[in-house]
């Protein structure tokens, strides 16, 4: 297991001009990223939808890499999205999974069968041609550049340390620096997309 923030610091070195949908890692990523105009930190609009949202972006923008940091709780809620993504197999889509084996934002309760799920195997079974799993940061760091250089879709499951939150949602520190509307506007402006 490794810390999400440590992984993101390494990822930042290789992100290039990829669009990044940080999902639940947004609070770290907004502090690390040097290309905020290409980031889509939306927080959690509705659980289970990060991957399919990012897939939609990838389908809309085939000439631009799209990286999503999904979580295992989200993915378990919407496993069917793997089949949809695999069917279209966007070459610009990179699906990273943060697996902390629990629902960290609700106090750390385990997800179903938390320690016994091979998400890379599920992705492969759904039709991803390239699916990998890492539980050591050193190993991921060595391979990250190569993973991002491959044509997508690429699935990368990672075991990360849970960052459990027990405070009521209303009392948590807000990490978002921009509204969701502003995030999408900034992205469209950066890419020259008419609204």
């Amino acid at each position: 297991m490794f810390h999400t923030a440590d992984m993101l610091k390494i990822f930042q070195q290789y992100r290039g001009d990829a669009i990044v949908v940080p999902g639940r890692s947004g609070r770290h990523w907004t502090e690390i990223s040097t290309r905020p105009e290409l980031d889509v930190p939306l927080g959690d609009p509705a659980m289970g939808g990060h991957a399919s949202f990012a897939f939609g972006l990838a389908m809309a923008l085939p000439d631009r890499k799209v990286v999503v940091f999904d979580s295992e709780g989200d993915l378990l809620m919407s496993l069917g999205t793997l089949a949809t993504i695999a069917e279209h197999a966007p070459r610009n889509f990179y699906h990273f999974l943060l697996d902390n084996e629990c629902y960290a934002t609700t106090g750390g309760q385990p997800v179903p069968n938390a320690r016994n799920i091979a998400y890379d195997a599920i992705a492969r079974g759904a039709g991803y041609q390239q699916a990998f799993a890492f539980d050591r940061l050193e190993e991921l760091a060595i391979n990250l550049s190569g993973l991002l250089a491959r044509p997508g879709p690429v699935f990368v499951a990672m075991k990360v340390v849970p960052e459990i939150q027990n405070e009521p949602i209303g009392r948590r520190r807000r990490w978002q620096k921009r509204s969701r509307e502003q995030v999408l506007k900034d992205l469209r402006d950066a890419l020259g997309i008419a609204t």
Partner: protein
Amino acid sequence: MTEQAILSPETVLAEMKKNGVTHVVWLPDSETNWLYLLMKAEPSLTLIAVSREGLALSAAAGLSAGGKTPIVLIQNTGMMESGDSLRGWVLGLNIPLVLLVGYRGWTRHGVTQDTAATYTERFLNAFGVNYYLVENDADAPRISVAFEEARKSRRPVAMLVGDEYHGFNR
């Protein structure tokens, strides 16, 4: 006996093309097979099949954020399943989106044994989503009205299809 007016799949497809639809994000409902065959043969459309309706809404939100014009094609049963995605990914991100919703159980006289119909309009009203009914080809221009309204309001607009395309009646 006069022939009952229908909403033909060709008319629905023409409305999609007229309004610049690029992607159809969909999950088949009980009578859309003929429309499916037409859409599949239409080179300007990319069909994205999902396995649960909530995923259609988040995928469509991503497509829209990337500058495309998706339409979501689902049944009212699945629309009700997708409530949280509708809230978060569409309403929450101000996504202009037309939902073409098969109105299972709908009857003009209002008497139905199908609770899918019973709750359809109540569901849309609960989310503050405007909607129009299309029953036959004469109603089809309402689809363009929905696209225009979605663009201007940056909100979803639902088309409730009270005919379901006569999909298997060919």
